[in-house]
């Protein structure tokens, strides 16, 4: 198993990637939007496109009657993220089949926490119009005020919640 790369160098690599995105695509990277597209597609599949498009929360993710997330830039980007992550782990011998969890909790607890945490993040990402990739990273580099508000509050909340979740991780 190869050692992980230097975090600063990796960060600089990601920064250069972000610049490539600005130049090639006129926008930064993102992630949560892709999940919103999937949610919109599921909604449309469940209750029909027309009713889904009537909801102001769902409508922006159903442009011009296209219900397939396959048309979404962010979905393709995340597919790339998965592929890239896979290749990196594969070449470094870090592929595994496991469920990471702290030493004191059961796999079930971990799964419940992951689902719950994911749900809370999903709601937070909607309010914030993005997540660590879209707001903190891409928006932060462009010095958007909202992105920096997100950075500060997200880090603060994470540090404040850490003592409460010790049992989960340590």
């Amino acid at each position, binding site marked *: 198993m190869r050692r992980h790369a*230097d975090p*600063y160098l990796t960060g*600089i690599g990601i920064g250069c990637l972000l610049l490539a995105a600005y130049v090639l695509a006129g926008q930064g990277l993102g992630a949560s939007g892709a999940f919103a597209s999937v949610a919109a597609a599921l909604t449309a599949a469940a209750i029909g496109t027309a009713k889904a498009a009537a909801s102001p929360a769902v409508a922006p993710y159903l442009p011009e009657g296209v219900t397939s997330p396959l048309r979404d830039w962010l979905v393709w980007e995340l597919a790339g993220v998965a592929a890239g992550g896979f290749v990196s782990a594969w070449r470094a011998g870090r592929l595994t089949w496991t469920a990471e969890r702290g030493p004191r909790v059961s796999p079930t607890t971990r799964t419940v926490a992951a689902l719950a945490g994911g749900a809370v993040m999903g709601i937070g990402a909607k309010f914030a119009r993005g997540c660590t990739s879209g707001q903190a990273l891409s928006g932060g580099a*462009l*010095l958007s005020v909202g992105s920096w508000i997100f950075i500060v509050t997200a880090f603060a909340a994470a540090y404040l919640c850490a003592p409460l979740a010790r049992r989960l991780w340590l």
Partner: protein
Amino acid sequence: MIGLHRSLAVAAMLLGGAAAASEVTGSAGPRSLASDIAAGRDWTTAVALAERIKAGEPMSVFDLRTRDEYERFHIPSAAHATFATLIDAPLPRSVPIVVYAGDSVRAAQAWALLRVRGYRHVAYVREGLYEWIARVHEPALALDATAAERMAFERLAVLSRYFGGRPRLDVPRAEIPAGYWTTGDDRVRPSMATALLVAAIRRRGC
């Protein structure tokens, strides 16, 4: 690794420091303005502006004519401004600014003024409001238009209707100056054609 990290930190601080230093003179200095002018980065066309407004791109558009003229007709989404406003107003720095007037002199002066104030993304509409009227508000198609002209007109007509304009069909060829279609929205130097067009519209007293 420590040595590398230290070098990276120094590089980051140097680049940051240089960025700060360049703001004091760099982007607002004569060399920078002259380079923008030479490269044609200082002006834009009415059609290009129209397409950006239609696309919902965030930007600030300012009309530099008198308040009266502004109230009678102005480019949709434009706000009124005077030189006094432009000298002091704390405009957002990350949003592109476009200025226009009745002609290019005033607008170009405002461009220079804003650039000197340190705003980096400023442009002026070369022939001002009259270019907007001629190309966006009332694009004209000749009776004996060629196929190429018809296609170009279709694009302009869509744009025009979006802004509540009135595309004019079947205009006698004599009323359309030579070069109206060839000097479309490419970034070419304005030709005699555009000048004639502008003069014709001024005579009509729009």
